[in-house]
């Protein structure tokens, strides 16, 4: 029973991490560069939800569309500031510019909201449900549901729509896509918007259950990075599986050992994968590693 309880908590946490990792992979594939500001965008999404809740005291579900729209706008701004001027430079330039932008976002949040932890409103309502001795927070169920819907939606968008095909064409080979008439610049900007929107949703979900501070973004990006390396650099499915694995280490493995040992084991697993299967558990999307 205890294992089940921990596993459910781990899956809920992993679902939120998966949204962060998904946004990370989308930008990685579209630009070939690592967006190190993705974690800070999660923090920005969390604080945006906190700020909106101050004006509109409604459940988080009603704030969600606003967060998505505003964060998509922020994603476009990130693309214009950190990617567009450097698009013809080596990927490491974007890597550095997103680190810088992340610091700007972090300090901006600190200046605007202060350093104290904040809590966003729950998606539906707070409280817990009990099933056969298991205590499950309503917010955990909401996180799992929303994450599943969004991840499914992104997959549908990418695989079954003309826009998705253009996004994938841009991700696979920008030069060929441009030669075929795909507006590559717009597709990259759209990818940043989509990734930021996903980060915003993750921020709203995490900021209720686990609170949010301006410096939390660093934790999220490290976890997303590990998830992507474990799952396979550039693999969407791999990133989701990697995110789940990271969360299960934090809950289930930590229960068998302790948090310090669980963290050590996670990094040991990461190193083992890098040594024996550097392409990650699900294989690496070809030519993606920056």
């Amino acid at each position, binding site marked *: 029973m*205890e294992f089940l*309880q*921990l596993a459910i*908590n*781990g899956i809920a*946490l992993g679902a939120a991490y998966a949204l962060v990792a998904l946004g990370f992979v989308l930008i990685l594939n579209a630009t070939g560069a690592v967006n190190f500001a993705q974690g800070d965008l999660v923090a920005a999404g969390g604080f945006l939800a906190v700020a909106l809740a101050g004006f509109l005291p409604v459940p988080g579900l009603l704030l969600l569309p606003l967060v998505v729209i505003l964060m998509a706008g922020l994603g476009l701004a990130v693309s214009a500031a950190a990617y567009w001027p450097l698009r013809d430079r080596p990927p490491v330039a974007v890597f550095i510019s997103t680190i810088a932008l992340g610091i700007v976002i*972090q*300090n901006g949040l*600190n200046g605007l909201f*202060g*350093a*104290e*932890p*904040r*809590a966003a409103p729950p998606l539906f309502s*707070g409280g*817990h449900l009990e099933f056969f001795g298991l*205590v499950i*927070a309503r917010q955990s169920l909401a996180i799992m549901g929303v994450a599943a819907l969004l991840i499914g939606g992104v997959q549908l968008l990418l695989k079954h729509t003309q826009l998705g095909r253009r996004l994938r064409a841009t991700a696979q080979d920008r030069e060929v896509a441009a030669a075929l008439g795909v507006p590559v610049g717009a597709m990259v900007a759209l990818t940043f918007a989509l990734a930021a929107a996903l980060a915003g949703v993750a921020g709203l979900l*995490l900021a209720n259950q*686990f*609170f949010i*501070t*301006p*410096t939390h973004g660093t*934790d999220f990006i*490290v976890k997303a990075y590990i998830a992507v390396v474990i799952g396979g650099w550039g693999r969407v499915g791999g990133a989701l599986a990697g995110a789940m694995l990271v*969360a299960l280490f*934090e*809950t*289930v493995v*930590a*229960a068998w050992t*302790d*948090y*310090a040992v669980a*963290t050590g084991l996670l990094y040991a697993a990461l190193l083992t994968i890098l040594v024996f299967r550097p392409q990650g558990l699900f294989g690496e999307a070809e030519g993606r590693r920056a």
Partner: protein
Amino acid sequence: MKLRIFITAFAAFLSLMLLQGDALAEVPNFPVLVPLTGFLSLEGTSQRNGAVMALDEDKSVAYGVFDTATSPEVAVNAMERALRDRIHTGVIIGPILGTQMLAMLPLAEEYQVPLVTISGTAKLTEMGNPWIFRFFPGDAVTKVAHARYAVEELGRRRPAILYQTTAYGQSGRGHLETTFRSLGAVPVYQEGLDVSVRDVTAALAKAMAAKPDVLVLHLHSGPTALLVRQARAQGIDLPIVAGSAMHQPTTAALLEPSELRDVCAETGSSPISGGSPEMERFTADYREKFGSDPDAFALAQYDATRMLLVARHTGPTGGAPLRDWLASHEFRGLAMTYKSDGKGNMAHDAVIVCYDGSTRTPHIAMRYKGVDLAR
């Protein structure tokens, strides 16, 4: 005619500048070096607010606020910048972050400038440096009060300790364990949590398996709130005696009042709990000035700065005279009476605050006076 006007105006300007320079030369400078960004920015902001409030009330000294962020190098650079004008700088109000203060201590000795801080790191006052003055009770005070309250007042004998893996957390854990053992209450479970851990149900499950009768926390603000919330969600209704982070109004704001039932915390003071007209006036003025509730860090820094200002008005404004004055005088602040123990530890009292489950404002449940002086 035009030349005469120009010469007169220039002479007047020059006289004004010289006069102003003379006036400025007499105004001591109290630089405020605090972490305003990074993981300790919440506490650093409280520290800044407390110092600024006292300095703005007095208006007799100049000051500048410098952000020390999180690394010792930034703090040392900020101190170098603040000390560039050595004639006016009589004292440095130093950061709450212990690793930064440790790096700044040699500079204080070199420049012969007292360092006034609210950092709790025990080592600061154990290095024989006569220039350090700490106005917040260290672990040797607060953790003793923490453990004594759990054992002597709540009658608990099987504490489970959950602490942060940071230097702050490990230092506190050491003092807690020693005190619990000396009181005959051997901890049944101990685990360190990294600040990035989000889900603490695993730690709670293991702690509960050891059958504790009280949960003892020594965590930062966010992790404290997380643990209290997740413990209550898991149906754990044991009393929780937390570290000073729990007394911060911003921590309590993250929790529902019902989740706070049977939760207590150690701290140096609790301004929002009131207790005297002066304390209530301080809290009201602080709210008006900064738009937030004051915590013990803000009040400790306010008291420390007021003691410096009392010194400034009675004579010493810096250097060795101020050091000797601080080392030999007693000051009755709002939180407590401060007096050096010979090592620069000025604060020796702690309080335990508890929440009753109906409000986020705690009441003072117990006062411990002269904890480290009594031993």
